[in-house]
């Protein structure tokens, strides 16, 4: 049992438990902070998978950006004096059955499939440089389009929220 294995199971537990709480807890704020844990765990996974840059981006964007946005959303759509910020769920039974079946199918397909695994998994040396080269060469168009999209989304969000 190596550190790697321990870390994997630790992060997997964090991810799954917190994700479970996210989707089942009635308190929106708890859900949001559980989501923080989930993101953290996923970042840990990335680190385990040798994607340190993506892990940090995950922290910066998800924790520092999206989660804060979500928290803002929660705080702005619930009255501060109102301690009852719980929220319900509906169609729980059919949803659990069907999602359960779906996840069964998914896991079955994931495990039964013979994935072609490259024999020599290269050590991720200087991934940042690799990603930068790919972004600036093969995916330059997508990169720029994404930039424009992000700009449009920001302007749109600002204008929608201002109204």
């Amino acid at each position, binding site marked *: 049992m190596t550190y*790697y294995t321990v870390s994997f199971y630790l992060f*997997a537990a964090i*991810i*799954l438990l917190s994700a*479970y709480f*996210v*989707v089942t807890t009635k308190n*929106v704020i708890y*859900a*949001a902070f559980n*989501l923080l844990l*989930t993101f953290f765990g*996923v970042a840990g*996974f*990335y680190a385990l*998978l*040798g*994607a340190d*840059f*993506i892990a940090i*981006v*995950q922290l910066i*964007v*998800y924790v520092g950006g*999206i989660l804060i*946005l*979500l928290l803002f*959303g*929660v705080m*702005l*759509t619930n009255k501060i004096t109102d301690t009852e910020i719980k*929220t*319900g*769920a*509906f*169609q729980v039974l059919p*949803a659990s059955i069907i*999602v359960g079946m*779906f*996840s069964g199918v*998914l*896991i079955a397909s*994931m*495990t039964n499939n013979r*994935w072609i695994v490259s024999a020599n*998994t*290269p050590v*991720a040396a200087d*991934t940042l440089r*690799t*990603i930068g080269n*790919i972004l600036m060469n093969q995916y330059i168009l997508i990169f720029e389009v994404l930039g424009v*999209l*992000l700009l449009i*989304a*920001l302007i749109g*969000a600002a204008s*929608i*929220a201002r*109204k």
Partner: protein
Amino acid sequence: MQEIGIAHFLIVSSLLFSFGLYGVVTRKNAIMVLMGLELILNAANINFITFAKFNGNVGFGQVAALFVIVLAAAESAIALAIVLNIYKNFNQVNVDEIDKLRD
């Protein structure tokens, strides 16, 4: 205990995906639905990174994951703006009660 392989990560991502789906399908609060969506996106990202790692082609999977993260940021910004607007108009964000068009 066997060595951690590709299947381990994929199973975790599948479960994460299912949780996300469950959240999207069952939650009433629009923000909770959004959280479910983020879970789904994270599950997808885990898959990207996993395949990138085990396929030996590290860069491309990570770039794809990067794109997904950027898109998720844009998506959540827009979605939250819409939710705020809805809250302004309806004074609540429960997706099952915002049915003004139906009336």
